[in-house]
């Protein structure tokens, strides 16, 4: 796939220590939007956007997003016309156990996106909105 960036999810799913460690929170919240958006679809009368019809499949479950990159579909919502952004940023920071006060330097790797523009909601209404995929 020309221009497809090998997403950190693909690396992380085969590197258990990485998944267990620092990027857990970033990776966890990054993926949470996928099921949340899908769950929001249950309400036909909702103004929420609709997820893209395609996506990647893991363990027999389809997630309505593609691994991001330059030249691939980076939006997680469909029936959309607007500005879109994607960024995979790595870095370091300090994680702190709030119960013990113990802290350590951790790594993070992120998949962050935004979609801002006109979209057709689940209720068929055409609206303007701004959405973040974090």
């Amino acid at each position, binding site marked *: 796939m020309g221009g497809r*960036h090998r997403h950190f*999810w693909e690396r*992380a799913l085969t590197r258990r220590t990485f*998944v267990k460690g620092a990027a857990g*929170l*970033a*990776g*966890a*919240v*990054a*993926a*949470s939007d*996928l*099921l*949340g958006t899908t769950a929001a679809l249950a309400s036909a009368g909702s103004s929420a956007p*609709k997820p*893209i019809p395609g996506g990647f499949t893991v*363990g027999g*479950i389809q997630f309505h997003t593609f691994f*991001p*990159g*330059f*030249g691939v*579909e980076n*939006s997680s919502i*469909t*029936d*959309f*016309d*607007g*500005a*879109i*952004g*994607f*960024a*995979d*940023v*790595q*870095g*370091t*920071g*300090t*994680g*702190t*156990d*709030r*119960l013990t006060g113990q802290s350590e330097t*951790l790594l*993070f790797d*992120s998949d*962050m996106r*935004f979609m*801002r523009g006109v979209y*057709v909601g689940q209720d068929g209404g055409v609206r*303007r*909105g*701004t*959405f*973040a995929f*974090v």
Partner: protein
Amino acid sequence: MQVADNAVTAQPGAGRASLAVENAAMFDFFSIPNALFRFVPGVPAHASFDLIWTGPVTDRKSISDKATGFEGEFVATRATMGWSAQTDAFSFVSDAASTSHSVAAVLGTERNGRFFRGT
């Protein structure tokens, strides 16, 4: 998640944009596999992000992908991010955004689904 319109600024053609979210409510699922498959429930969390697409533009593409049903004009650029997050048991604060490393960053204007023209 939906955010305020002014959480995002975008000049896609120039390779510059920003996404600023403060104290957004979400869930910590502890690991990527658990976030995908929900073996155990997540816990409430709040996170703040300051993500800046800085430029410069390093590549440009016009795409019309009939198979996936999206089209648009896109640029490859660079980005930095500072962020923090917190649950009842754990907190994380990134180092300064200037120390972060941009692996890949893209900006663009896109049409998909009903707005896809296929030209």
